[in-house]
């Protein structure tokens, strides 16, 4: 569905991504994990058009989309749900949905129809339509953000750290909502710090380190690997050892969020 080939991109003088190869299957959930600075979020920024690649190719269903503007990429069928804070808290829930349909603004009937359709799948859109989005709980905000992304009927939804800053209950909402997005026909490519959460949700997993993909497999196979902690926190021995303790602490949080 989406394919990245030898993708190189960065900010200023440095390359954050150094030849990334990645393929995402249609209808799947693929989760990218890796230590801070691995380039996970940069991958999403390049796909969504916020950052131009310096080299390499990005294709959607075989067609090149590398370097196109964000509105063009949304029209092509890819939307990104940003990290926490991407919801427009001063706007009502309904206004957030309208803004989500920005690229369709000349087709008001379609926007209206999509909001009505999505309100059936996500009842909160109707129940809290007139409330300010900033007044919703963490989980509710995430639902609105997901629903907002679906206005344009995307083929691919990119999720950037969907559980960042959320408590276990809200994370569980994200889990269910992501599954729902998949069941509605979208392919999901997500970046997640919470490794166990991400891989339990995903069909496929990709591990990145220092701007490269170092491992790609089914999520189940990745979860079963005994060296997963070292892979996540960095493959250098010191980093791996130091990370073990933190990962143990993190396990309980992740387990709680999936309970």
């Amino acid at each position, binding site marked *: 569905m989406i394919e990245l080939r030898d993708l190189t991109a960065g900010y200023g003088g440095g390359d954050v991504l150094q030849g990334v190869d990645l393929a995402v299957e249609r209808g799947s959930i693929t989760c990218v994990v890796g230590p801070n600075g691995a380039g996970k979020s940069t991958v999403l920024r390049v796909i969504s058009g916020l950052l131009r690649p310096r080299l390499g190719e990005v294709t959607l269903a075989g067609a090149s989309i590398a370097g196109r503007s964000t*509105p063009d990429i949304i029209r092509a069928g890819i939307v*990104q749900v*940003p990290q926490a*804070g*991407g919801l*427009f*808290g*001063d706007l009502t829930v309904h206004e957030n949905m309208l*803004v989500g349909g*920005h690229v369709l603004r000349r087709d008001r009937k379609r926007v209206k129809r999509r909001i009505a359709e999505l309100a059936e799948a996500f009842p909160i859109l109707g129940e809290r339509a007139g409330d300010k989005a900033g007044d919703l709980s963490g989980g509710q905000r995430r639902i609105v953000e997901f629903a907002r992304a679906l206005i344009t009927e995307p083929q691919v939804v990119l999720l950037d750290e969907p559980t960042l800053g959320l408590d276990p209950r809200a994370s569980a909402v994200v889990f269910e909502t992501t599954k729902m997005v998949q069941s509605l026909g979208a392919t999901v490519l997500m970046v997640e710090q919470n490794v166990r959460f991400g891989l339990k949700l995903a069909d496929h997993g990709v591990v990145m380190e220092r701007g490269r993909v170092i491992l790609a497999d089914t999520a189940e196979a990745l979860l079963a690997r005994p060296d997963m902690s070292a892979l996540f926190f960095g493959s250098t021995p010191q980093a791996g050892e130091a990370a073990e303790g933190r990962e143990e602490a993190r396990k309980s949080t992740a387990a709680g969020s999936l309970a």
Partner: protein
Amino acid sequence: MTLLAQTLIFGLLTGGVYALMSSGFTLTFGVMRVINLAHGALLIVAAFFTWWLWDRTGIDPLLLGLGLTVVMYGIGWVLYKTVIARVQRIDPELTLVASFGVAVAASGVLSLIWGTEARAATPSYFNTSISLGEIVIPRAQLYACVGAVLLLAALYALLRGTFVGRSIRACATSRNGAALVGIDVERTMAQMFAIGAATTAFGGAALAVLYQFVPDSHYVWIGRVLCIVVLGGFGSFAGAAAGAVILGIGEALTAAYWDTRWTTAVPYLLIIAILILRPQGLFGARHRLEGATT
């Protein structure tokens, strides 16, 4: 009692005009976090355009102000693209200095073109009024206030009910989120700044009718605008409207019960008082962001 009622009505009418004059400044700060010290100069530029056109054509100055909205929008757009956006990329705080530089430069250019003589546009109804019993309402103040309130309502409707307005409000909350739904953030910022400048068109026209002005008058007017936004809470649209009415009434009461010469000191006395008693402004910190766009 009649004097008090008369004074309050006069202050209210003045406050309505002040509210429009400060709305663009508030919008620019609320959305972009830019303190546009050129806002007073934009008001004076619009006032000079109004006076010059009125002097040449005899067309009603307030109607000219409506027409000048397009011109001031264009000036705002150019100002944003050539100065504000560029300086912002270097250091957002530098916009304060840059916009002050624009104000000084604009004042100099106006002096070169039209001199430093005091000007005012005085339409035929300037010295006429409407009587309601013992209360007298000057037509110029009334028309200027009605026009200003209608334009504020139009601005509110634009922000609330159009894609452009919602895009502006979205950018005020999360530029990253706005970019990810396909909003051209840079273009929206330029539109917003230009809309802020466009509000000075009718504001400047009202200024030209109600007050005498010279190129350097922008110092007085940016002082008034700053007083209004400090009163209401920086970036708060509703707070600015309240601040505008308070300042208008404060000036009217000072002129009626004390001395007209002291009216120019009222904004600064109010700023000192509010900074001591309630530094976050009357509408408080919570309303700063949301108020800017609601």
